[in-house]
């Protein structure tokens, strides 16, 4: 009788361990970590931006956003559901300050079924743009942008749900010109008009 109870308990423990071991890689597939090797690029950069804002910091920062400034209202709306915003951006005074291998560890993390590359542009001038989306069914659960230019390298990771409308609303705000829906015209934001 005692052996039967112990056997049942062991079985339960085994199932829980199995479930946990399966769950961990699923989360790990979606998780994107900024590579540590990027930090050394800051030493060669003329300008570098390092932003790491997790969910609690995003909520904290959003409390300080103005309710009157339309740009800040837009940002507040956008970050309300986000779990993190991570940016590494480097500007160099000459070419060849970073190598393709510096980006490999980021790309490797995005080569999982959870992530899909929606934009991959390579130009002969060496201006490359990549946009990756993390899909949770019909919803977008995250976004990674890799912009690699000869003298500039930027990696943006937005962790959390963003719907396509909100995503496109990033353009046209904060002085960023907005591309019209037909894609042919560039509509300047009100801020740009003032300038």
């Amino acid at each position, binding site marked *: 009788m005692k052996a039967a109870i112990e056997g049942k308990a062991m079985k339960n423990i085994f199932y829980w361990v199995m479930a946990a071991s399966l769950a961990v890689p699923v989360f790990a597939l979606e998780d994107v970590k900024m590579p540590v090797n990027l930090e050394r690029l800051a030493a060669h950069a003329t300008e570098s931006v390092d932003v790491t804002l997790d969910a609690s910091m995003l909520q*904290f920062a959003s409390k300080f956003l103005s309710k009157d400034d339309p740009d800040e209202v837009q940002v507040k709306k956008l970050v309300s559901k986000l779990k993190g915003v991570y940016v590494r951006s480097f500007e160099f005074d000459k070419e060849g300050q970073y190598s393709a291998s510096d980006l490999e560890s980021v790309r490797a993390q995005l080569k999982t079924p959870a992530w899909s590359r929606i934009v991959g542009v390579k130009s002969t001038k060496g201006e490359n743009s990549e946009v990756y989306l993390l899909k949770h069914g019909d919803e977008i659960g995250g*976004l990674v942008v890799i912009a690699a230019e000869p003298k500039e390298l930027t990696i943006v990771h937005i962790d959390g749900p963003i719907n396509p409308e909100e995503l496109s609303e990033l353009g046209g705000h904060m002085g960023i010109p907005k591309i019209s829906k037909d*894609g042919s015209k560039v509509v300047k934001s009100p801020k740009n008009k003032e300038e």
Partner: protein
Amino acid sequence: MTELEQQLAKALARRDAPAGFSDRVLAAVQQSNRRVPWWRKMVPKSSASAWRLVPATVALVIAMSGALYQHHEKAEEGETAKRQLIAAMKIAGEKLHTAQQRVVEIGEIRTNEGSY
């Protein structure tokens, strides 16, 4: 009984108070109590008691200064986080815009090539 004694007896004779006298006295007492400000009741009457309040006052001032400093620090941190957030969203928006623009440009080139 002499005339003087008679006058004294008349002057000191027991008489009832006029109507409403006790009410007026009680109202006057309450009025005088109300006039004393609350803080005056807290101020010790002797200097020895006043000296006893000094450490408590110093502690209160230190605690208030600490709270004000913490509030200031928190506000500074918040402003920094806000600036970082706006910078991050600006960079994200710019890079997305650039990628979008490049896709549009490629589409235009392909359309033009197809039309020739």
